[in-house]
């Protein structure tokens, strides 16, 4: 079972990101859950969302406390919250930042910086959440680019203009390729 926990702020789209990831995974034959967490939401408040994916049907509906992967969409949450809580050895934090923060005294080797804000901007998209979905897909390593494209079409097809759709797809792929290229380089 792969479990992902998303950290972001209200308005940054982690709920949408978790849904997009689940859509791409279900398209590849995974059993999935995309689980938003609700509290007193407001724009800018810290938010959490989750994903589960497995090769057999997922029956448990309890909370995800020991994720395999943590995604942090907002750089400021790194100091504000212990985003790595519950992450075991072999786990990974994907952080939306130009580089891993120097001040961290937590396992630096378990953090990967993805410059998602910059990649989103270069793609002409407004949001870094979709970049991080591409990055997560690349880290998990199963499935290719086509399932991501199909998922983007299914989730946003009715809501976005053709130009916005193209920008979103470019942003997702930018995240996917960033991680793939980083892994090749290491």
């Amino acid at each position, binding site marked *: 079972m792969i479990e992902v926990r998303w950290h972001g702020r209200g308005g940054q789209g982690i709920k949408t990101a978790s849904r997009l990831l689940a859509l791409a995974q*279900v398209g590849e*034959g995974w*059993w999935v859950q995309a*689980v938003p967490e609700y509290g007193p939401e407001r724009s800018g408040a810290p938010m959490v969302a989750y994903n589960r994916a497995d090769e057999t049907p*997922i029956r448990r*509906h*309890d*909370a995800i*406390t020991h994720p395999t992967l943590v995604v942090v969409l907002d750089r400021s949450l790194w100091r504000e919250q212990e985003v790595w809580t519950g992450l075991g050895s072999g786990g990974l934090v994907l952080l939306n930042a130009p580089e891993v923060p120097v001040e961290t005294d937590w396992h630096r080797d378990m953090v990967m910086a993805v410059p998602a804000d910059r990649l989103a901007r270069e793609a002409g998209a407004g949001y870094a959440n979709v970049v991080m979905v591409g990055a997560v897909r690349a880290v998990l390593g199963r499935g290719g680019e086509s399932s991501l494209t199909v998922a983007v079409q299914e989730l946003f097809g009715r809501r976005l203009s053709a130009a916005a759709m193209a920008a979103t797809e470019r942003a997702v792929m930018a995240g996917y390729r960033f991680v793939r290229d980083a892994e090749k380089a290491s």
Partner: protein
Amino acid sequence: MSKQEQQEVQQEGCRTSRPSPDARLVTGAEAVAEAMRQIDPDVMAVYPITPQTPIIEAFSQYVADGRVHTELLLMESEHSALSAVVGSALAGARTVTATASQGLAYMIEVLYIAAALRAPFVMAVGMRALSGPINIHADHSDVMLARDSGAVILIAETAEEAYDLTVIATRLAEDPAVMLPVLVGQDGFITTHAAEPVRLLDDALVRGFVGEYHVPYPLLDPGRPTTQGAFSMPDSYFPQKAQEEAATRQAGGRFLTLAGDYARVSGRELSAVETYRTEDAEVVLVAMGSVVGTMKDAVDRLRARGLRVGVLKLRMFRPFPEDALRKEISPGQLLLVFDRALSPGSWPPLFLEVAARIRGNSCRSLVFGLGGRDLSVEAVMTVVEGREDLPANAASHLGIAGGAL
């Protein structure tokens, strides 16, 4: 989980390896809205409340897009919404509504009247804690308010079950032997807001299954005038209540038949009582709702450690499926009954129901998950492994200070 446990759990699996190609990723709320779109009711009267809101959000979109012919009534309160539902159902329109928590509490006065008037409709419930303190998360306190209303109460474990039960509930409510409100509960947020693969059926198949609604005594037929909702003196009140009670009881048998019909068109069996690995079990966990899936995982892992344990799930709480329950329980099995609601000053509701029907079984009461508090696979395992220490003279409150575990 240890490596060995993992292996044994995997060996146990005779599960499918991929979601069906027609499975769609939807939340429990979206799945119910989709069922309602396919049912295409004549009237929906609602008032929004978390966590039911996404049901009417999705359904309103279907109305706006012209994908249903439904008259959508956005009322000024739940009390008014259910009053409109009752009028609509008695007039002969196929009618649905949806609510949760305080909204259901506000509907309760009208719900008793609806059942007495034998008004058939389906009510989706995103089951949520009652205030106070104010809380928006899952528990079963709200549907327990409807326990003695006369309405039928069905409870889903998953988003797909919420979908299936909504379709079956339409026929059940309108069945001539029943003619009652049917509540279809799913756990707030855990099921209403989490997206999972759901095998939605074809529109034509669902429409064929639910068919047309024919009200036997329409309120608005001037050629055949009827009196409905009349004052009832002591000479007639009790006999009418007895008829109503008989109808609620008959819903058990009718559900069995309709679920059988549904299995033929959908390939999915939805019995009132479902068991998982109980045949040779020494310990049986009894529960309703989304926690049952979590328990199934716990059961597999406990069996890998040599414990003979199983789960008994109730999909139906009213009428209480006592024959099915008795059939599935063997003498000597220890029953651990998990309630997601309290009855302060007494035992919790599901425990009372089960304890009243068993002979020759020990029974322990556990309250968990109030206001959305988590119950993990590991916590279920801890309860089962520590079962000898569970008190017999009081309910244990799981996961809180002062609770047994």
